[in-house]
């Protein structure tokens, strides 16, 4: 029987030629990730293992992004625990203030994950790297500890949902709108324990930033992972974001075409689902029919089109543009396209957070930061801060925020009577201008 793309990657990491859904396996891990919230617990647990040290100092990545720059003394202590551990264990990829960015934007950018990899991270949004054709999933701190110590972890081989994309999205429709639409359709447990495997001619219409946003929110449908096939867009991305290690393998002078040709050979592996792979469910989505989408409180599945939302006159107190879902350069460009020459509404706070130092710098060079500041928005150093109600934009009782982040649960961004509405950067920026949920079309 045929295997899905996810099953093939898992099989390759167990040394077995065939796996079927439901099997319990132990697989070799290519990369283990943790942040400043989940790592301190993992460090404590890993030091309890007999191994007592990481299996490969180049395959563990620690990113200080959630409450860093330290929001308070307790957060500072946690970051210090990670810093000292990284030093003690000679962790090569430790990203602290000045080098850090939001982990799921940083890792693809640094080329630390390539097609065919098996990645686990103690952060639920680790699912993001499926955009690169990798199998990538979130785990807890104890799993992270076990993976750090042994380089292996147990998995139940997942079933899959096949999502075939066709057509071309219209202006203002992004990867975020696609994933909010899908979650609205299948629900917050619609892909529970399953892979969400994307395919079809519509895939080529989605940029790498779109695909990263789509896979990022697979967890919001309960998915174990989201994954895209590897195509020329993936190869271009890998060539432009080569890790130091792979750069050394291919040589400083390797051209872009040479790097692209090396993907699947010396860099990563390219997997395709078998034609006779079995799927739990098959969906077909015509991208040309999608509309900019907003998810209402308090579940990401409460999706409505922005036109419907606009009619309800939802007044906003805050807009956040950033996060591991939508803090990439194309998100910054989309926000700037709307905010250019316009002003943020009176009595509304607009907080924009480029996800990494490189994105921040690029946005600065392109003049985007100037557009944001002239519009009356603030621009923050990279941090997960407001998305999880950590800091840098906490909501008071009854306040409403339109946000490009990924969760709108009760109390997610602050007080328990506050409300979070999820959308892509175009819609978020349009809301910042009018002070209400507004279609970008209405501004033109």
């Amino acid at each position, binding site marked *: 029987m045929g295997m899905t793309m996810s099953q093939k990657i898992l099989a390759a990491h167990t040394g077995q030629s065939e796996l079927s859904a439901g099997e*319990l396996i132990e697989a070799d891990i290519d990369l283990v990730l943790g942040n400043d*919230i*989940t790592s*301190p*617990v993992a460090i404590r*647990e890993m030091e*309890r*293992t*007999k*191994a007592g040290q990481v299996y490969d100092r180049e395959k563990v990545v620690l990113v200080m992004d*959630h*409450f860093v720059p330290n*929001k*308070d003394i*307790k*957060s500072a*202590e*946690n970051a210090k625990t990670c810093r000292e551990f990284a030093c003690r264990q000679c962790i090569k990829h430790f990203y602290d203030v000045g080098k850090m960015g939001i982990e799921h934007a940083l890792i693809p950018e640094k080329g630390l994950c390539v097609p065919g990899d098996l990645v686990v*991270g*103690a*952060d*639920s949004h*680790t699912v993001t790297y499926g955009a690169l054709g990798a199998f990538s999933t*979130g*785990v*807890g*701190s*104890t*799993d992270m*500890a*076990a993976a750090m*110590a*042994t380089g292996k972890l*147990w998995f139940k081989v997942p079933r899959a949902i096949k999502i075939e994309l066709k057509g071309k999205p219209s202006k203002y429709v992004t990867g975020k709108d696609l994933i909010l639409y899908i979650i609205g359709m299948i629900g*917050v*447990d619609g892909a*529970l*324990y399953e892979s969400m495997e994307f395919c079809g001619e519509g895939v080529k219409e989605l940029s790498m930033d779109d695909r990263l946003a789509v896979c990022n929110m697979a*967890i919001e449908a*309960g998915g*174990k992972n989201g994954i895209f096939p590897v195509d020329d867009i993936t190869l271009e991305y890998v060539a432009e974001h080569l890790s130091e290690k792979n750069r050394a393998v291919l040589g400083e002078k390797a051209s872009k075409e040479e790097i692209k040709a090396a993907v699947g050979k010396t860099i990563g592996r390219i997997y395709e689902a078998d034609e006779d792979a079995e799927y739990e469910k098959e969906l077909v989505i015509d991208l040309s029919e999608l509309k900019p989408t907003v998810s209402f409180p308090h*579940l990401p599945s409460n999706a409505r089109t922005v036109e419907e939302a606009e009619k309800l006159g939802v007044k906003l107190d805050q807009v956040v543009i950033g996060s591991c879902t939508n803090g990439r350069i194309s998100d910054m460009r989309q926000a700037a396209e709307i905010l250019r020459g316009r002003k943020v509404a009176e009595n509304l706070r607009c907080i924009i957070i480029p996800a990494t130092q490189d994105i921040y710098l690029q946005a600065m060079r392109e003049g985007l930061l100037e557009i944001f500041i002239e519009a009356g928005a603030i621009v923050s150093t990279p941090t997960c801060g407001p998305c*999880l*109600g*950590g800091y840098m934009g*906490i909501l008071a009782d009854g306040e409403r925020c339109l946000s490009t982040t990924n*969760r709108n*649960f*009760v*109390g*997610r961004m602050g007080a*328990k009577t506050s409300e979070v509405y999820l959308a892509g950067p175009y819609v978020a920026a349009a809301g910042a201008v009018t002070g209400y949920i507004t279609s970008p079309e209405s501004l033109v």
Partner: protein
Amino acid sequence: MQAKGKVIKYGDNIDTDIIIPARYLNIMDRRELASHCMEDLDADFSKKVESGDVIVAGSNFGCGSSREHAPQVIKDSGISCVIAESFARIFFRNAINIGLPIVECPEAAKAIACGDEVEINFDTGEIKDITLNKSFRAQPFPEFLQNMINAGGLINYINKEI
């Protein structure tokens, strides 16, 4: 292994932000952390919960973040078992890894009411609602997971293997 206690019942999609809001994730002291368990949904939870109590909930329990603090605060609050129609994937792993007993059983989760006295036998998968005088049967865990649970969690399990 068995658990017995009074039921505290919740609905569907109890997310990890409800179980333990992120604003407390900088707290490393487990007792202090547990005092905030469920507070945005059920402000009295930490006062009313008694050692041995059982949480019964609907589908997708523990959805959202990967924070292991979620099953940890439930365990540290004295909850002896969580019965749900279904669990979110990462919460399921985390609960087993840290040794919080969980049971997936839609029939039991639907029928059992708040305040009922229940008894769970983890070896047979039997859930008995003493108040209703009704029994339910959950699928027992596969042997591999049962071994991990018996070892007292993932770290103890791998320490046996290394």
